């Protein structure tokens, strides 16, 4: 489609690559924050085209990967209740909780439905007044406004059987936390373009300044990624650390004011635990008191569920770029995409899952996951 294919055109990649190659003089470690960007990089093999000096570290920008285990377990507990219709984006169905996933809950009789939009969950609630309909409200700042709107509409329409299990996270505190990590190797960031479409770029200059790190707002298509890399490398080579917008067609400095107003109304900032990383202060949103009645955690009294990550899993270090997945002992043995220990092995853009595929490619001895279907 227009403005999508244009930025997937391999004919135009040559100039960008050439410019990067011409610019780079020494090794740089960049982090693409967003899982969508990771997906593009792997899907198109972008990393294989870059000069060896440019290393890409996959960031924690995938809600599937970072939704904390205890929130997953709460989701599973709610979804398993009779009388509940549990609605979720498709991504979350295979994410393992402590002992099962949403697929398994559905197999055991839970009414779990995949929706495309939070408004679909609201419609299901209107159509099933005798059921409690719970929407799994996960995601970054891009998904938060749509989810917030579902709650606003539920209130406006008086849909009392609708509620949301909220686990929204915010990108800037995560960048801050990564940079504060003593082992941090990241020297430049490709910021998540769609997050910035909503939030604008006001939060970044202070970050860039404080950590003396270039931050380039980057889109999601292959050429966008290359342009983000090109601009970051150029800053690094020049010793600069400013905020640049390489995704100007969709990002304005002020973001989307209408969305920001609704976020302000519906949510309030809270500390949030990131799966495999730990608690990051002020890194999440929860429903504000004005909308607390739609909070599924309260309605179903699951707030008490506390869990621990499997000790073997080192996804936190992986997500922070401190460890390569194949340096994890569980990798490829007890932890595979079929039996993931950490969320980074689940998501198609998770760093561990990506490495698993590649190691299999370079190491033919590793067994296939399965064999032909009859």
């Amino acid at each position, binding site marked *: *489609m*227009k*403005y*999508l294919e*244009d930025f997937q055109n391999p*004919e*135009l990649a*040559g*100039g*960008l*690559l*050439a*410019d990067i*190659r*011409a610019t780079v003089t020494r090794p740089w470690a960049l982090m693409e924050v*967003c*899982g*969508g960007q990771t997906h593009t990089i792997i899907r198109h093999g972008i990393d*294989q*085209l*870059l*000069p*060896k000096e440019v290393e890409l570290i996959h960031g924690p*920008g*995938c809600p599937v990967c970072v939704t904390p285990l205890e929130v997953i377990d709460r989701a599973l507990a709610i979804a398993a209740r009779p009388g509940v219709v549990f609605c979720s*984006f498709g991504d979350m169905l295979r994410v393992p909780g402590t002992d099962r996933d949403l697929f398994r809950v559905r197999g055991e009789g839970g009414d779990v439905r995949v929706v*495309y*939009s*939070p*408004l*679909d969950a609201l419609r299901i609630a209107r159509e099933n007044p005798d059921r409690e309909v719970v929407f799994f409200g996960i*995601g*970054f700042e*891009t*998904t938060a*406004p*749509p989810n917030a*709107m579902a709650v606003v*509409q539920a209130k*406006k*329409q008086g849909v009392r059987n609708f509620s949301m299990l909220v686990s929204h996270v915010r990108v800037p505190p995560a960048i801050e936390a990564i940079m504060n990590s003593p082992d941090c190797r990241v020297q430049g960031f490709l910021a*998540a373009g*769609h*997050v910035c*479409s*909503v939030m604008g770029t006001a939060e970044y200059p202070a970050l860039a300044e404080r950590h003396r790190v270039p931050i380039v707002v980057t889109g*999601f298509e292959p*050429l966008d990624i290359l*342009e983000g890399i090109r601009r970051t490398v150029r800053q690094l080579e020049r010793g600069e650390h400013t905020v640049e917008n390489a995704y*100007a*067609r*969709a*990002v*304005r400095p002020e973001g*989307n004011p*209408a*969305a920001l107003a*609704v976020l302000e109304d519906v949510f309030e900032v809270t500390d949030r635990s990131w799966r495999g990383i730990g608690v990051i202060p002020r890194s999440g949103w929860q429903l504000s008191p004005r909308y607390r009645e739609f909070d599924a955690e309260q309605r179903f009294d699951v707030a008490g569920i506390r869990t621990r990550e499997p000790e073997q899993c080192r996804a936190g270090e992986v997500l922070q770029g401190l460890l390569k997945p194949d340096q994890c002992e569980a990798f490829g043995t007890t932890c595979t995409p079929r039996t993931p220990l950490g969320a980074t092995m689940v998501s198609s853009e998770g760093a561990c899952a990506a490495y698993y595929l590649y190691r299999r*490619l*370079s190491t033919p001895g590793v067994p296939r996951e399965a064999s032909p279907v009859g």
Partner: protein
Amino acid sequence: MCLAVPGRVMEIMERDGARMAVVDFGGVVKDVCLEYLPDLEVGEYAIVHVGFALQRLDEESARRTLDLFAELGLLQEEFGDPWEAAAGGPMKEELQ
């Protein structure tokens, strides 16, 4: 994260008290909520995520970016073919 794609507004209407649009994504047409871009007009492009238009797409800016990429392409000749230099996967030949 945050799969969002540009689409073109074809039609605007009201449903369940919300501003909605029919949006064309290159031959694929879907209903989209306009509550966050209430002044979006028919013919304009917007970035759409999970059924919501989240930001107007600036066509002029898009064009400028693509022009820049094309310009950079001209530099390519000075520095040689980057395909050659790429790390390369296990497959060397291009098919067909």
